[in-house]
């Protein structure tokens, strides 16, 4: 069969696609900014109407309940206390501290979740035995677990990471299990025809087939690990992280409401950074047909 230069033609098509993604990326960024502007507008509009009409339901609108967005952003660049450093530098320090805890928790949780998923994928019996308890573990509020972890591991870094891991592992386990079981039956037959070992089937077929599932779990887990770390700081009475900052600024909310809002913004930003890091890793690791990329 003759193929007149199909390789070249195909390569051209691939590059053409890639060229088209640039304006696409700009467009997506534009939409994101537009939505941000719209949210900002809604907040200020609601505030404006609420103040004008002296709204009392569901809450009275004033500078304490709903500070201006620009006041919140301004607060970031003012000293957090008299002669102290700027709020933003305090919050960035806290965020860095929390990020380290969350990252360790994420790594622990993801590893444990992945290993548990592999274990369960190998036995229907184990699935039946363990899954109810794994699900049950997630219905126990993290606030009830956290103090016990602190008692067991002493307050500090490690206990916070373990609490973050507790929130992280569940989606990874469930999706690893689903992903490992998603391998094409004919691909499994093919492996059987090669007399491949179970180990080879796991690493050459099941795990690569599961990667898209695992990554969609990691995206959820990445943000959950940040939440877990923040919550974990509370019973550990750790002051250096975002959890400590939230507790602290919540006490002074009636005087300086913008500080708590600013802290929330930074916490949200940290969650987004974690999320984007996973998305980036997925782009680098997972090679799939364009229509199969979630």
């Amino acid at each position, binding site marked *: *069969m003759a*193929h007149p230069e199909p*390789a070249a033609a*195909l390569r051209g098509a*691939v590059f053409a696609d890639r060229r088209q993604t640039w304006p696409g990326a700009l467009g997506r960024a534009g939409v994101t900014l537009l939505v941000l502007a719209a949210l900002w507008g809604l907040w200020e509009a609601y505030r404006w109407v609420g103040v004008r009409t002296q709204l009392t339901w569901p809450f009275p609108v004033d500078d304490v309940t709903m500070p201006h967005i620009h006041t919140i952003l301004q607060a970031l660049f003012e000293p957090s206390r008299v002669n102290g450093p700027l709020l933003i530098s305090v919050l960035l320090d806290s965020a860095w501290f929390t990020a380290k805890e969350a990252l360790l928790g994420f790594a622990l949780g993801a590893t444990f979740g992945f290993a548990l998923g592999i274990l369960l994928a190998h036995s229907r019996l184990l699935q039946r035995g363990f899954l109810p308890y794994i699900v049950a573990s997630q219905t126990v509020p993290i606030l009830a677990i956290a103090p016990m972890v602190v008692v067991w591991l002493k307050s500090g870094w490690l206990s916070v990471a373990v609490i973050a891991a507790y929130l992280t592992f569940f989606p990874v386990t469930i999706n690893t299990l689903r992903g490992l079981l998603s391998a*094409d039956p*004919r*691909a499994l*037959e*093919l*492996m*059987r*025809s*090669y*007399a*491949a070992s179970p180990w*080879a089937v796991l690493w*050459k*077929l099941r795990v*690569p087939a599961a*990667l898209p599932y695992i990554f969609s779990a990691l995206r959820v887990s990445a943000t959950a690990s940040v939440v877990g770390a923040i919550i974990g700081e509370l019973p550990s009475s750790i002051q250096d992280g975002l959890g400590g900052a939230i507790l602290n600024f919540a006490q002074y909310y009636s005087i300086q409401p913008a500080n708590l809002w600013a802290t929330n913004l930074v916490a949200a930003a940290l969650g987004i950074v974690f999320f984007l890091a996973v998305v980036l890793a997925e782009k680098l690791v*997972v*090679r*799939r*047909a*364009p229509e*199969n990329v979630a």
Partner: protein
Amino acid sequence: MSEQAAAVSLAGVSKTFAKGQVRALEDIDLGIRPGEFVSLIGPSGCGKSTLLRVIGDLVGASGGQVTVNGKSAARARADHDYGIVFQDAVLYDWRTVAKNVALPLELAGWSRRRRGERVREMLELVELSGFGDHHPWQLSGGMQQRVAIARALAFSPALLLMDEPFGALDEMTRERLNIELLRIWEASESTVVFVTHSIAEAVFLSTRVVVMSPRPGRIAAVVEVDLPQPRTNETREEPRFFELVTEVRERLRATEPAAGLLA
């Protein structure tokens, strides 16, 4: 034909599913000589795919003897004595074309250099040189199927098992790949067992066509195809080709239950 020389030898082979409730194959006797191209044809449910899987030891036979290259089917599978191609190419999306072809060699522990050489030869054989770095989803269905054939031939197995490999392709591509497959068959000097539901395809490709009847799957007839080799597009227009197609069609019709039973 001596037992020793047979590429595939089936004696009294049966296969039941669902604890004996479903009899997929019954009393199958068939010997396939090295270098033969044998098609299994029959209505759906006649167990032709199951028979192919029994030969490949992908499912075990419930009774009878299966011998491949003079060994048990399990031994032959462990020794990489056959390559298999399915209806879908079943390529791994996350691997390039070259790495897909290299997969069986990788599993068998071949060195990177030996793998690279063999993959280059195989891609040349299926005329896909230059596509090694592409991903499967960048290829057409016909090209993907050729990659699957290259992968099946990676070990230069004596036996090639094919389960409706061109069933999902359009007529034009299918006819082109038929010619292509015969060229590869000649070049690799292998034995082919080919499952299809296309009468014309079976006659065009094979040296023998095995007609199977359903429920339970049995061999209803074996038609010797005495068309001259090598076969070309002109073969499809010869009177003898039509005679053989007609013969296989009549054999197939004879396997159907009487019309009154269907109503």
